């Protein structure tokens, strides 16, 4: 079946603009994660959704970052008033349940803030 997909694959935006990144998890996966990966670095956890439970937002770096997920489907990560330090690859991952730690990653969205 289809894996995790993300769109757009690349996004260039001007400082101060808002951006919205989309993630389509694997069908049936109840858990969804967003990560940020800066150039040459590891992944930083941003936010976690599990079913209809309240999301774990503990990794969001500032209030400019927010994410939504409707049920067990698509998720969007929104960054408001983008800054140059927001430039990174944003990765989405899903897993079948909250007990399944094996995460399946999408290809990521490369965000460049000019």
């Amino acid at each position, binding site marked *: 079946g289809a894996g995790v997909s993300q769109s757009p694959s690349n996004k260039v935006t001007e400082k101060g603009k808002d951006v919205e990144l989309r993630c389509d998890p694997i069908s049936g996966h109840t858990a969804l*994660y967003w990560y940020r990966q800066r150039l*040459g670095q*590891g*992944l930083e956890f941003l936010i976690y959704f599990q079913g209809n439970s309240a999301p*774990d937002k503990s990794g969001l770096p500032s209030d400019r970052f927010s994410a939504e997920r409707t049920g067990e489907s698509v998720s969007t990560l929104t960054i408001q008033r983008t800054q140059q330090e927001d430039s990174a690859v944003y990765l989405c991952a899903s897993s079948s349940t909250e007990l399944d730690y094996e995460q*399946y990653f999408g290809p*990521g969205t490369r965000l460049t803030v000019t």
Partner: protein
Amino acid sequence: GESVGLHLPTLSVQEGDNSIINCAYSNSASDYFIWYKQESGKGPQFIIDIRSNMDKRQGQRVTVLLNKTVKHLSLQIAATQPGDSAVYFCAEREDNNNDMRFGAGTRLTVKP
């Protein structure tokens, strides 16, 4: 604070040799450890995982070793192939914490 890190940022090996990628972690409460492979332009791909109640787990050409005494995790790749060239990340988490913490990664280059 707690962190996951790697001993070496780069590793170069000859095709056919065995590779060992190391990872140190500091959170003694970690329950689960995982290795990911990330090729250029792609998302991380699961390789192998291990729970804290184990010290060794084998997959196809890969073995993960966990030494909880010194908080050390390693990934061994047998008969390394050019297709193994990638960045390898270790990650860890606690069962009651959604935060999967990743190390910075080791770039493995396989020379033909």
